[in-house]
C-alpha cells in the first residue's frame, strides 16, 4: 500500500501558520458558480472574500456566501461586472489586497490587470503584458511558431490569386478547406482533396460567399481530419517553475461552445501527453507565463497537433483536472499571486481515474437551446460517491436573463471512463431543477450515444452524431 501526499504540507490551514505573504482579503470580480468557486478557495485558506454584484444579483448565492459584498452597478454587465473602475474602487474601499477575476468579464482584459497594478492591487492571473500578448491570436501563434509548435497552416487572411493559393495549398498539403471570410459556424465551407478540386472549389466558394454574405473573400486552411480539441492545464509560479497537470478533452462542442469535458482524454496516450505537455510548457516559458493557464490544441486523427491559443485565466472546465490530480487550481492561483513557490514538481502530479464535467445551462434543448431564465421552484443537486457540484442555484433562485446561461457544473469521477460515465448518468437523472428547462436531457443523450461511449468525439460530434439536435 502506497501512501502519497499525506505528509506533504500543502498549504497551511486556518489555525496553522500561514505563508508570510498570503492575502487576508480578496475581491472576486465575478458572479455565478465561478464566484462561489473562488469564495470557497478563499475560505479554505482563511482569506476573507469580498463579492461584487449587480443590482440583478442582490439575492445571488455569491453575495450571501461572501464575507462582504459590494453593489457595483446595474444589471447589464457593461454597467457592473465589466465596469473596471467600480470594481477597483470596491476592492480599495473594502481593504482587499488582490482581485480574482474568475473567467469571462474582466478576466482577460489586459487594461484591467494593469489598472489593478496601478492601484496596488494584485491581479490574480498573469501580468497585464502577458494577457495582452496571448490575448492577441496572431501574436500568440507567432510565439508558438517561434518555439517550434505548429499552428494550423493556411493563408492567414484572404486567399490571394488562384496561382498563389494553389502554390500555398501544395506546400501545406491536401486536404484543404476553403472558408468564407464573412462566414462562420461552418457555413460556406468547401473541401478539396487535390489541385483540380481546389480550383473548382475556390470558384464555387467565392460565388457562394458573395451570394450568401455579400463578400466573396475566402481563405484556405489545412483540413484537420477528425479534429479533437485538447488542452493542457499549466501552473507557473513567479520563479520560473512551470508544470502541467495533464490534458482535458473538450471536443464535445455545440456551435463552438464546450458542453462536456473530460480528463484524461481517451485519445491521448502517455507519449502524446508528454509531447503536448512539453509544447504547452514551451509556449508558456516563451512568454514568461505565471499563474494558471491553458494551452489549446487541435489534434488530428494521426496525433498531429496544432496550437490554437493560450487562455490566461482559470477555465470553466478546470474541475476535471482537479478531480484527477487532487490539485486545487484556484488555490494555486492565489498562492502564486501571493508570491509562493510551486511546492512540487512534475513527478508529484499523478492522474488518478477519470473525470467528466457536464455544463448544465438554463436552455431548452428541445427548443433550439433557447435560454430559459426564471424561478427555480425546487432544486436538489445530486450527491453520493464521485460527484462534485459547482452551482449557484438554490430553491427559490430566480435565474436572471442578463448573463451566461450556465447554472451548474456536474463533475463525475470514476476509476475509469466507464465508471465516470455511469456516475454522471446516475447523477443527472437524480438532479432536480424544477420549472426551468435545462440541458440535462441533452447531456443524458450524449452519455448514451454509442460514439461517445467509444470515445469517438470530434469537434463536429453534435452535428454529425446527434442529428436530432
Amino acid at each position, binding site marked *: 500500500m502506497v501512501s502519497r501526499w499525506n505528509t506533504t504540507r500543502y498549504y497551511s490551514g486556518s489555525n496553522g501558520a500561514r505563508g508570510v505573504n498570503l492575502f487576508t482579503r480578496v475581491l472576486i470580480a465575478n458572479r455565478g458558480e465561478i464566484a462561489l468557486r473562488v469564495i470557497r478557495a478563499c475560505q479554505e485558506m482563511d482569506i*476573507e472574500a*469580498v463579492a461584487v454584484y449587480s*443590482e440583478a444579483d*442582490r*439575492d445571488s448565492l455569491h*453575495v*450571501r*456566501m*461572501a*464575507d*462582504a*459584498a*459590494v*453593489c*457595483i*452597478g*446595474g444589471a447589464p454587465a457593461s454597467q*457592473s461586472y465589466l465596469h473596471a*473602475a*467600480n*470594481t*477597483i*474602487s*470596491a476592492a*480599495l*474601499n*473594502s*481593504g482587499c489586497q488582490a482581485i480574482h477575476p474568475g473567467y469571462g468579464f474582466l478576466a482577460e482584459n489586459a487594461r484591467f490587470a494593469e*489598472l489593478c497594478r496601478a*492601484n496596488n492591487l494584485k491581479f490574480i492571473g498573469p501580468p497585464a503584458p502577458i494577457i495582452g500578448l496571448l490575448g492577441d491570436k496572431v501574436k500568440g501563434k507567432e510565439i508558438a511558431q517561434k518555439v517550434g509548435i505548429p499552428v494550423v497552416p493556411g493563408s492567414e487572411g484572404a486567399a490571394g490569386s488562384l496561382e498563389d493559393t494553389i502554390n500555398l495549398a501544395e506546400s501545406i498539403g491536401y486536404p484543404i478547406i476553403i472558408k468564407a471570410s464573412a462566414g462562420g459556424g461552418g457555413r460556406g465551407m468547401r473541401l478539396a482533396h487535390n489541385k483540380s478540386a481546389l480550383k473548382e472549389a475556390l470558384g464555387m466558394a467565392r460565388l457562394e460567399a458573395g451570394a450568401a454574405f455579400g463578400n466573396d473573400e475566402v481563405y484556405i486552411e489545412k483540413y484537420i481530419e477528425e479534429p479533437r480539441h485538447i488542452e493542457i492545464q499549466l501552473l507557473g509560479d513567479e520563479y520560473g517553475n512551470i508544470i502541467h497537470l495533464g490534458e482535458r478533452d473538450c471536443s464535445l462542442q455545440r456551435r463552438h461552445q464546450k458542453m462536456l469535458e473530460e480528463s484524461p482524454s481517451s485519445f491521448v496516450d502517455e507519449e502524446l501527453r508528454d509531447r503536448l505537455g512539453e509544447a504547452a510548457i514551451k509556449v508558456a516559458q516563451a512568454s514568461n507565463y505565471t499563474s494558471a493557464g491553458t494551452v489549446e490544441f487541435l489534434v488530428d486523427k494521426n496525433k498531429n497537433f496544432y496550437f490554437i491559443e493560450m487562455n490566461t485565466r482559470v477555465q470553466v472546465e478546470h474541475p476535471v483536472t482537479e478531480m484527477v490530480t487532487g490539485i486545487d487550481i484556484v488555490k494555486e492561483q492565489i498562492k502564486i499571486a501571493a508570491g509562493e513557490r510551486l511546492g512540487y514538481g512534475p513527478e508529484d502530479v499523478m492522474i488518478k481515474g477519470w473525470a467528466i464535467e457536464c455544463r448544465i445551462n438554463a436552455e431548452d434543448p428541445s427548443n433550439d437551446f433557447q435560454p430559459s431564465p426564471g*424561478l427555480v*421552484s425546487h432544486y436538489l443537486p445530486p450527491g453520493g460517491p464521485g460527484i462534485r457540484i459547482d452551482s449557484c442555484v*438554490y*430553491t*427559490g*433562485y*430566480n435565474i436572471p436573463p442578463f448573463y451566461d446561461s450556465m447554472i451548474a457544473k456536474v463533475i463525475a469521477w470514476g476509476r475509469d471512463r466507464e465508471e465516470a460515465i455511469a456516475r454522471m448518468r446516475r447523477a443527472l437523472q437524480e438532479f432536480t431543477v424544477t420549472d426551468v428547462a435545462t440541458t440535462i436531457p441533452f447531456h443524458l443523450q450524449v452519455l448514451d450515444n454509442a460514439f461517445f461511449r467509444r470515445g469517438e468525439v470530434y469537434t463536429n460530434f453534435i452535428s454529425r452524431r446527434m442529428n436530432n439536435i
Partner: protein
Amino acid sequence: MNLEEIRELVMLLDKTSLTELKVETEDFKLTLRKGLSRPEAIPIPEPKAEDKMPVLLPSREVTPAQELVSISSPMVGTYYQAPSPDSEPFVKVGDIVNKGQTLCIVEAMKLMNDIKSDYDGTMVEVAVENGQPVEYNQVLFWIKRS
C-alpha cells in the same frame, strides 16, 4: 351572505395575491385560504457583511413617501462632504438645495466626482458619513422636494 357573494369572493381571492380571506358576522363566518407562494418564504443564510467589514450593504429600504426623494451614488467610491478637509460641508440638513447644486464628492480611483442635486428642495437627511465608502446606487441624501 349568499352563494353569489361567496363566489365573487372566491374568484377575487383567486385573482389576487392574497392567501386568506375570513368573514365573520354574528351568525356567519367565511374563511377562504390559498397556498403560500414558495420562494419568498425560504430563509437563506444572511450575508455576514456588516459585522466584519467596513463595506456596507444597501443601508435602508426606500420609503416611498411621496415628497421624499433620494440622491444615490452613481459609482463605487468614497463619500466626502466637503471639497477639502478644512472646508465647510457642501450641504447640511435643513439647507435649501437647488437642482444642479453640488452636494458632495465621491472619490473613485483618485478622481473626484461632484455629485449634484437632481431636485429643488430641502435637505432632510445625509445618509452617509464623511469618508465613508459607498457602493453603487447607495442612497446619500434624502431631499424633500419643493
